[in-house]
Structure formats: structure tokens, C-alpha cells
């Protein structure tokens, strides 16, 4: 299905990532946005508030993030595409409802503009420390899809992709952007509506008596319904059977929750998007995502100037994680270097999937800024030279760390 021309603001713009994401969501047919102001994600919400009413999308600023998330799930069940926008602390508050959304298989999109954490942290500066939270933040077992864009143009493109994935797999999709990308302004080209492919909702079209909200299609995803169609929906966050009725029999529970996981796991190959460059003959592969991959480019350039064969692997979709591909590469290369704006999250999954075949070097950064590319270059160099197999993640000591803890840097006291 093509996008509705009314929703698409075709043209060339100089806008930041937040706004681009808002425009992307509207182009994808988002008709409901609930949000709560939180730095640094407000620009996206503001953009949708400005443009929403003109394209028939309703916005509401709820009283808190808990309410926003609940309203978004409610709106999705009323039949419209919906999204919410937040950042770290708000994301933590939404966790209960995200789990509920995953459980009742609600398609929605969540934009998380990550900032420095934990707690209030550094609201106006960047971080990538919610990556694991996006996968594991709610209680119980579930799977979600997470995308990490690296530029305003991608914020637009992947907002559309996020909605498409959400509709296709009936699951929450997180756009795990960060403050750098959110507040980075670049040229964004918005194509014409007929160039934009949008996934329609998989609606049930049959006699009401036959409808079972959780009866899966062959790809394990069930058909969706909306309130008010006379289907007498019974939707509960309790473990339920195909009709949606709560069950207490554990066998059902296993089968049911298992499908929530399997519908993503089995369709993994269709969902995962990674971008590789020069990995075939590489000694070291830099695995990165989001803004870190743009920062890493500089580090890679420096390392290549020093004669090291470096490839790059960029996770566009961070979750589900490309286990097999990493394992495959691990057998070929000496080491992975993972620059992240946190003290180690995705790197643990890289380490897990490398199965001891390749060393794994983490270039950490606490947030509130991005890596010094020289640190990444140093780490690559170290990784290329290291002959031993080292178990565990090697934490590269960055210039920043040396400066703060050894270099006599004085914080005001």
C-alpha cells in the first residue's frame, strides 16, 4: 500500500532528527500521538503537534508517561496507527505498559531519544545506555524490534519502516535514537507519497463469530481487530488462549508466550537489517549502531591510514540481534571492536555470539558526549595486534577515563 499524499510533506528540508522522525511517522500514516514533554525528545512531539491536526492526526499531551503509553495502546486498538515519544526516565515509566502492549500484541511505535543516564543524568546530552532496557526492561518474556538510526534522513526513513514492522509483526517497535541524532540537523529529502510503501493493518475480515484475536497466521502473527466492530473483543494482559480468554493452565501459557517470542525469532531474517563494509578481508570488525557508527567512521579511517584492515558492521536493527552473522564473522576475524556510548551493553551480545573465536574490545563512553575517534582507532590497533585470545570483554581505557581518573582533571569542588 502506498502512503496517503496528504500525510507526506514531500520536499527537501533542513531539519533535525526529531522533526524528521515526526514527519516520517505522519507519512507512515500515524494518526495518534500521545506524549509527555521530556528533553531531548520534545522537538519530535512538537513537530507532530504542529503538523498532526493538518493531516487528521490527533495529538494529546497526557499527564505522564504511564498514561501516554496506555493511551497509545488504546488508540491502536481503536484502529489507528499510534506512537509515543520519550527519553530515558519516561521510558522506564512506560515499561509496565510496554510489556502489556507486547502481551496483547499491539502494534505501536515508540521513539526513544536516549540521553545520559542513569536517573535524570544529563538530559540535554547524548547516551546509548537504554539499549538493553529496550530488550529487557519489562517483566516477563517478550521480544521487541529496535532500530537505531544514525542521521535525520534515516530518522525519517526508519520511522516509516518502524510502523511497517509494527503492523507486520503486531509488536512494539522501538526507534532507539539518541540526542545526537535527534538534535542533528541535516538535509532531509522526503519523497513523494507513491514512493513510500506503508504496511496496512492486518485486519480480520470475516464473520464475527469466527474471530479469535490470537489465532496466528502461518507466520505466527495473528490478525488484528478494532474496537467497535461488533466482534465482542476480550483482550486481557493475563496469559490467554486464542480467543483471548485468560487461562490458568500452564501449557497454554508456554505455548502462548512462546509464540510472542517465536514470531520475532522465526522471522528474524526478514527483520534484521545490518550494513557491512569491507568485512571480507578484515582483521578487525567494528560493530556499532546509531551515532556511534558515524563516530566510528573517523576512527576506522585513522586505523586504515595506519595500515590495519578494518571492516565495519552497523546494526540498523539492534533487536533482534544478528547472532548468526556475528558468529560467522567471529570465525574469520581477529577481533571485534564495539564503540558504545555506555559502559557495555550490546558488546556483551557481541561477546556472547563470538563464542570465544574472536576477541571483543569495548570502547566505552559514559554519555554526555561522543567518543574521541582516536580512542576507537587505538582500540582497533590494539585489537589487530593482540595475539592472545582473551576471554571476556576487554574494556579499552579511553582518553577521557585517563583524563578524569589519572590525569589530574579537577572537577569543581
Amino acid at each position, binding site marked *: 500500500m502506498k502512503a496517503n499524499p496528504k500525510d507526506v510533506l514531500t520536499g527537501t528540508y533542513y531539519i533535525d532528527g526529531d522533526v524528521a522522525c515526526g514527519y516520517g511517522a505522519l507519512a507512515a500514516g500515524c494518526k495518534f500521538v500521545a506524549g509527555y514533554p521530556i528533553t531531548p525528545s520534545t522537538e519530535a512531539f512538537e513537530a507532530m503537534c504542529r503538523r498532526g491536526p493538518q493531516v487528521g492526526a490527533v495529538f494529546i499531551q497526557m499527564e505522564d508517561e504511564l498514561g501516554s503509553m496506555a493511551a497509545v495502546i488504546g488508540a491502536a486498538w481503536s484502529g489507528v496507527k499510534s506512537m509515543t515519544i520519550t527519553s530515558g526516565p519516561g521510558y522506564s515509566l512506560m515499561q509496565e505498559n510496554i510489556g502489556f502492549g507486547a502481551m496483547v500484541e499491539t502494534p505501536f511505535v515508540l521513539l526513544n531519544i536516549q540521553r545520559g543516564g542513569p536517573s535524570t543524568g544529563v538530559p540535554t546530552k547524548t547516551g546509548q545506555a537504554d539499549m538493553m532496557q529496550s530488550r529487557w526492561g519489562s517483566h516477563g518474556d517478550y521480544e521487541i524490534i529496535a532500530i537505531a538510526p544514525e542521521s535525520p534522513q534515516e530518522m525519517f526513513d526508519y520511522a516509516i519502516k518502524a510502523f511497517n514492522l509494527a503492523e507486520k509483526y503486531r509488536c512494539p517497535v522501538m526507534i532507539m535514537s539518541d540526542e545526537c541524532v535527534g538534535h542533528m540537523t541535516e538535509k532531509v529529502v522526503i519523497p513523494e507519497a507513491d514512493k513510500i510503501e506503508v504496511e496496512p493493518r492486518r485486519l480480520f475480515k470475516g464473520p464475527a463469530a469466527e474471530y479469535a484475536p490470537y489465532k496466528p497466521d502461518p507466520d505466527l502473527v495473528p490478525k488484528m481487530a478494532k474496537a467497535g*466492530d461488533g*466482534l465482542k473483543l476480550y483482550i486481557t494482559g493475563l496469559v490467554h488462549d486464542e480467543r483471548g480468554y485468560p487461562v490458568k493452565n500452564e501449557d497454554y501459557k508456554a505455548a502462548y508466550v512462546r509464540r510472542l517470542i517465536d514470531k520475532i525469532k522465526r522471522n528474524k531474517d526478514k527483520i534484521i537489517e545490518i550494513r557491512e563494509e569491507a568485512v571480507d578481508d578484515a582483521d578487525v570488525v567494528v560493530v556499532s549502531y546509531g551515532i556511534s557508527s558515524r563516530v566510528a567512521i573517523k576512527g576506522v579511517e585513522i586505523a586504515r591510514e595506519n595500515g590495519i584492515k578494518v571492516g565495519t558492521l552497523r546494526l540498523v536493527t539492534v533487536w533482534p540481534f544478528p547472532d548468526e552473522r556475528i558468529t560467522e564473522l567471529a570465525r574469520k576475524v581477529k577481533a571485534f571492536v564495539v564503540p558504545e556510548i555506555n559502559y557495555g551493553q550490546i558488546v556483551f551480545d557481541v561477546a556472547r555470539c563470538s563464542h570465544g573465536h574472536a576477541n571483543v574490545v569495548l570502547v566505552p563512553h559514559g554519555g554526555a558526549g561522543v567518543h574521541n575517534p582516536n580512542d576507537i582507532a587505538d582500540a582497533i590497533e590494539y585489537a589487530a595486534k593482540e595475539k592472545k585470545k582473551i576471554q571476556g570483554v576487554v574494556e579499552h581505557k579511553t582518553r577521557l577515563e585517563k583524563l578524569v581518573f589519572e590525569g589530574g582533571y579537577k572537577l569543581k569542588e
Partner: protein
Amino acid sequence: MNSLISALHKGIDKSGIDRTKISVPSDIPFVPGVIKELGVDYFQTPRGRAIAFGTGLKLGNPGLKVIPVVGDLMTLGGNHFVHGGRRNMELLVLCVNNFIYKKIGGKPTPSMPAAFSPYSTFEEPFNFPHLGNSCGAVYTARWTALHTEELAQSISEALHKRGLSMIEVLAPGPDYYRDINDIESDILQFYYENAVVKNNEDPRNVAITPDEKIMVGKFTDKERPTFIDSYNVQHSKILKDKFTPHGTVSQEQKASGDKNV
């Protein structure tokens, strides 16, 4: 619980509203059979989020009638309630109040473990009609589980109100109260003896206190623009023809035969 459902049944009948257009988000678990019979769409939300969930439903499809049933006594969801009232979202909030009250059961309450009561036993409960009224609800009423007819009447009235209506239903609570205390019949008896109908009483005066009778009745019935009204008015004023009022059928939709508006 059953009395609430049967009142809901009667109320919807009386109001003449198409059942298929009614959605009930609730944090109280209702058994599927009951819902099937009621013929509505039912969503069991996380605790306390029924009103927020309903807000999304209503805004996503203004054609729906949304009846959030709030069981957790608005402890978790109090905020959504007051804000829903302020916005005047078109919702009919059924607030099931099942507090354990000093006189009930004749047991010395201090030994009642506080973890069982939505409020610790020594805390004072909310005066819900007053709270609802003060944050802007257009319709507030209180009935006990015994007043099935009045409750049904209230529901049918409130379903036609434009804005947030709130009906507090005093009913024996979820299972665990019964399990530990076996006091349901006592409660009903208590309601019978202590409830006094006082329609149009100032909600300020209807707090439930240990020494006075419980006042029930319809307390507030006023008009205010709803959220969707103000949304449409304000945006039409500023955006003029760039804006299609929400909840109206546009030409395109008419052409495409989309009835769901």
C-alpha cells in the same frame, strides 16, 4: 460484581446505544462469559490505566462509547482520573469502591492487615464525587450494589452526557475480601441500613465518614465542552479549512465507505 454487570446491562439497554460501539477498558478482571453476554469490547488493562487506555480508544475512534471500570480504587490511576476530568474526555468512569470500612463486619479493624485494604485502615478515604466534581466531571453519582435500578438509570443518563461522567459504585470487592472475611452479606446488609438517597446534594458534603450515613444519589449534572469539542473548535479557529474536525466524516472517507468514524 454481578450487580454491577446487571446494572450495566440494563443501563446500556435503557440508553439505546449500540452495544457494538461500547468499549470497556477495565482493570478488574471480568469473566469472558459475562462480557460476551454484555456484547461489548472488553480490555483488561494494567492496574490503574483503564482511563488512560480509554482516552486512547476514544481519541482514536470518537465513534466509540468508552466505559472505563476502575477497580483499584484509583490509587494507581488517580492521576488519570483527575486529568481525564479536567480534559473532560468523553468517558463514563465506573469507580468500584470496595473499601473496608470500620463498621463492616464488626471486627476490630486495627488488626486488619493494611496490605489487604486499598487504603491502610487508618487512612481516610477519598470523597470521590467531590474530587470528580472539583476536577471537572460533568456527571457524578454514587450508588451501592443494592441500588441496581438507580445505578442502571444513572448509567443510561451518563452514557448520553458529553464529557467525563463518574459513578461511584459501592460494592463488595474482589475475591480476596470475601476469601478472608466472608463479609459480603454483611456489607449488603450494611448498605441497606446505612445508605440514604440524597440527589443533588453538594458533593462537598457527601464524604463517607464513620459517624454518618452514606449518601447516595446523583450529585453533579452539568455541561462543559469536551476535549474533542475544544480540540475541534480551537483548531478550526486557527487552522480554518486546513483542519478537518476530529470525529466528523470527511469526503474522502465517505467516498471510500469507511464507516468507522
